[in-house]
């Protein structure tokens, strides 16, 4: 609902385990990671940041899967156009 941005964990602040230094395109801020305490979090992990708190871990696999689905959108369309070009298969509109 509100503004939340993906950022990369640069380091966990040592003596305060609920704080991490997170980086977004070169801008760094300390972020509270208490909401993600149930999962192991370390430098290199990507999290969604909102008002100074990490809300969720970003899944690289999830993102890649999504990109694959998006790329396939075009492929279906291209395949469809090819078939229509041959004159068989039904026109969709």
């Amino acid at each position, binding site marked *: *609902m509100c503004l939340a941005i993906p950022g990369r964990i640069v380091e966990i602040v040592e003596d305060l385990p609920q704080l991490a230094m997170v980086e977004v395109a070169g801008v760094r801020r300390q972020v509270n990671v208490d909401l993600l305490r149930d999962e192991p979090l370390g430098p290199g992990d990507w999290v969604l940041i909102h008002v*100074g708190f990490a809300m*969720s871990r970003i899944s690289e696999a999830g993102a890649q899967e999504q990109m694959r689905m998006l790329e396939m959108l075009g492929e279906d369309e291209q395949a469809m156009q090819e078939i229509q070009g041959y004159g068989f298969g039904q026109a969709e509109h």
Partner: protein
Amino acid sequence: MRYVDEFRDPKLIRQAAAEIRRLARPDRHYRVMEVCGGHTHAIYRFGLEGLLPGNLELIHGPGCPVCVLPMGRTDDGLAIAELPGVIFTAFGDVMRVPGTKGSPLEHKARGAEIRMVYSPLDALKLAQAHPDRHVVFFAIGFETTAPSTALTLLRARQLGVANFSVFCNHVTIIPAIRAILDSPGMRLDAFVGPGHVSTVIGCRPYEFIAEDFGKPIVVSGFEPLDILQSLVMILRQLADGRAEVENQYARVVPWEGNLPALRALEEVFELRPYFEWRGLGFISQSALKLRDAFAEWDAERRFTVPGIRVTDPKAAQCGEVLKGVLKPPQCKLFGRECTPERPVGALMVSSEGACAAYYHYVHRAAAAASLER
């Protein structure tokens, strides 16, 4: 920027838009509500509406936590801000929202100590740095933001910070969606579901929309490709005759939500019996207040607020815009008496308000023309 730029790929955007145009049957008029103000803002910031076919109409929902607060609550907050010794803190979004005697910025110009913060933790730090003053944090937001307030209060208690309190105006999204679905005369085919609220509450709470009302809902991210992909998923459901909850934003939203966040909410907050929403009226169990255990950090208990109900000016049609009955340019005051500089209602100055999105990103002539379709 990683996890942002990939989802703004121009080639993939064009492909997704083409797929939407292919899926939208020319003999149907689709009405899809995006619940969340952040989605409204993204749609117009990225010029996505222009890529959609004319028979796919986007209805803007009430998911703007600042917009749905009645003016009386802003007045209550400002009454606290005017008290001697108080430093009143709030997010940037709140600063221009009109109260009866002006916005927080205007009160600040007249001498009230009002400061903008990026995080409630910054407000707590301010309290620790100024032991001789009392710092109040104006807490707004849906379930995305409420856990941050909860954790801040837990920290305040843990540290024993006594000169800090929260003026709590958190609201919950499900009752708002239910109120929309229950509105007589509201005809909707599907929902683009809130993305960031769902990182906290998960996707299960939306099941009633599909099961009881038979409408598809796709929980969506905020980048152009996220929104377009969600619309593709919605159109596919409608074409198949399905009504399901789907999670387009799976890279970020866990189906079960965030357990530590939900536990923090449970520990710190309880539901108010009812709360007034601009546009939707009084809704029961739709807003949060601090539990008794946190009474000493509850600004409403530490201070007396006027608590006066203030109705919007008669000519303003904020409520109808919030419900999706009117589009912003259809409000008689839009762009004339009501502008971001001289707002009549919060929708024109909140960064998630539909009116602000139209005013800032949509060409007035184009907006007027598209309404004639």
